[in-house]
């Protein structure tokens, strides 16, 4: 549905985006993750035909973004960072205007407006002037604007920025509901958002792709063996540590920094589960096990390790 190959954008000598390639199949929600200024917005602007790429090419819904821009524009819904709303229009008349310029046929217009407003939860604000709406509602109007013509591809630039936690959850639900029918690209620098909504992830930093895949595969890729957190009650000193270190498959043991004595981080060799051996050994030696749980790598860890790798490289 979306095919990006070696896309670059330069502003004079400044490189905003360099050689980005990725693919998104139909119905996928693709998260575009990166710190501020990484090139997310620039990439999205190229995909929506707002900016021409300096090099490379991209196809959206099967059409080239430069050569067949009109066809692409018919098939996308775009929510820029700042919702593109007219402050002096009412919600209803604004959406009607957008629907018209997006080419929604006349007979379908009213039902499309009702549907969209229902979906984004702004139906009761139909006659409110947009300038009088709160930021959160304006964002919804922006989302409604992107949805009104039922585009095949939705491109959302930080759709939840500036919303309160309740609104964020609601908007995420709306977006999740869009996957399947629509292909969605959404950019964000909020990590939990990605793990909650996206099936596919592209991490971008300094205009380059730093990582790509499903959230799970990215985590697996970065895991260097499993880490367990074990709280073992035993005699003070190094006895417990040495006991753990002797277990087969354990790579490294260390006292967890900042925790009370007896809390260890146990790193095992990749693919080896040392939990059974550890429990048995603890019991054999007459210590007591208070806690044992695997430490999952969070998206924050992935993100930081990927983006800081890029910085040092």
């Amino acid at each position, binding site marked *: 549905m979306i095919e990006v190959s070696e896309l670059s954008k330069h502003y004079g000598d400044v490189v905003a985006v360099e050689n980005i390639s990725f693919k998104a199949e139909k119905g996928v929600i693709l998260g575009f993750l990166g710190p501020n200024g990484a090139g997310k917005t620039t990439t999205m*602007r190229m995909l*929506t*035909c*707002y*900016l*021409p*790429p*300096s090099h490379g090419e991209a196809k959206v819904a099967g059409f080239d973004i430069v050569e067949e*821009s*009109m066809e692409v*524009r*018919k098939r*996308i819904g*775009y929510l*820029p*960072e*700042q*919702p*593109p*709303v*007219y*402050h*002096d*229009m009412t919600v209803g*008349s604004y959406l009607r*205007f*957008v629907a*018209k*310029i*997006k*080419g929604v046929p006349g007979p379908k217009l009213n039902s499309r407006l009702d549907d969209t407003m229902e979906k984004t939860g702004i139906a009761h604000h139909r006659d409110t002037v947009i300038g009088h709406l709160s930021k959160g509602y304006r964002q919804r109007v922006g989302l409604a*604007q992107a949805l009104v013509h039922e585009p095949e591809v939705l491109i959302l630039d930080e759709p939840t920025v500036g919303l309160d936690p309740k609104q964020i959850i609601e908007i995420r639900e709306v977006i999740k509901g869009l996957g399947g029918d629509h292909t969605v690209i959404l950019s964000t620098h909020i990590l939990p958002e990605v793990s909650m909504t996206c099936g596919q992830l592209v991490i971008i930093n300094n205009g380059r792709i730093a990582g790509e895949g499903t959230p799970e595969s990215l985590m697996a890729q970065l895991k260097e063996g499993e880490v367990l957190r074990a709280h073992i009650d035993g005699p003070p000193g190094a006895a417990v540590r040495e006991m753990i270190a002797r277990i087969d498959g354990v790579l490294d043991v260390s006292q967890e920094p900042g925790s009370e004595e007896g809390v260890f981080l146990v790193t095992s060799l990749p693919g080896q589960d040392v939990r059974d051996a550890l429990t048995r050994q603890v019991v054999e030696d007459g210590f007591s096990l208070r806690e044992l749980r695997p430490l999952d790598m969070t998206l924050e860890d992935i993100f930081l390790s990927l983006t800081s790798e890029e910085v040092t490289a």
Partner: protein
Amino acid sequence: MRNFAAIYSKEMRSYFVSPVAYVIAGVFLFLSGYLFRNILMQFNLWCLQFGQRAQQMGGQMPALNLNEMVVTQFFGVMDFIWLLVIPMLTMRLFAEEKKNGTIELLMTSPIRTVEVMLGKFFACFSLYSIIVGLTLVYFVILEAYGSPDWGPIFTGYMGYLFLGATFISVGILASALTENQIVAVLLTFGMLLLFWLIDWSASFAGPTAAKILHYLSFIEHLEDFQRGVIDSKDVIFYLSFTFFCLFLTTRVIESRRWRR
């Protein structure tokens, strides 16, 4: 056509929903009405003075031409007010879209830049024509007390339509060049004033240059209309100026698409 209509009605709505249309129409009509009254009073005074003098000298009173002394005078004043007002009608057309980010919506919609530009142009032109049309009331009042020649009045108004289109096209171009409305106003005003006064420098130029400078003057072409003459060279001047500015506007807006 549908896109054009959508943009056109959006722009018209925006003029009339905000105070812009009312304030501009109000200020313009107040000022022009006030000046029309003064011109009329002046004409009255002259009539009185000439009448008295004629009586004292025992001769015939010279004929005072209502068209020349009221209508043409008033047109001269109206030209000048439009020079000040048009930049304010046009400044927001593209500058505001850029500032608000709504230009991203327009540029990523399946709609051609020409349609956007024409929708905006004709919306502004309609508002202008409505306000200009309202001033016809003054001449109806004049008709009640005198007998002006309506021919030059109508051609004069026709001239205003051409002049307005030209002014507005300059304003749209300036608005497309910036996202700052004050810059847009100043650019428009500067351009309009320059072409207004451009024939002044004709007096110091060589014969060929003088001809060109005369030809470029906004005001020279208007005078023919106000005298009751519809000359194709004037019509062509205004139309070609308008087309040129509108063409440039489209290019400026589209340039984003080819600036790699």
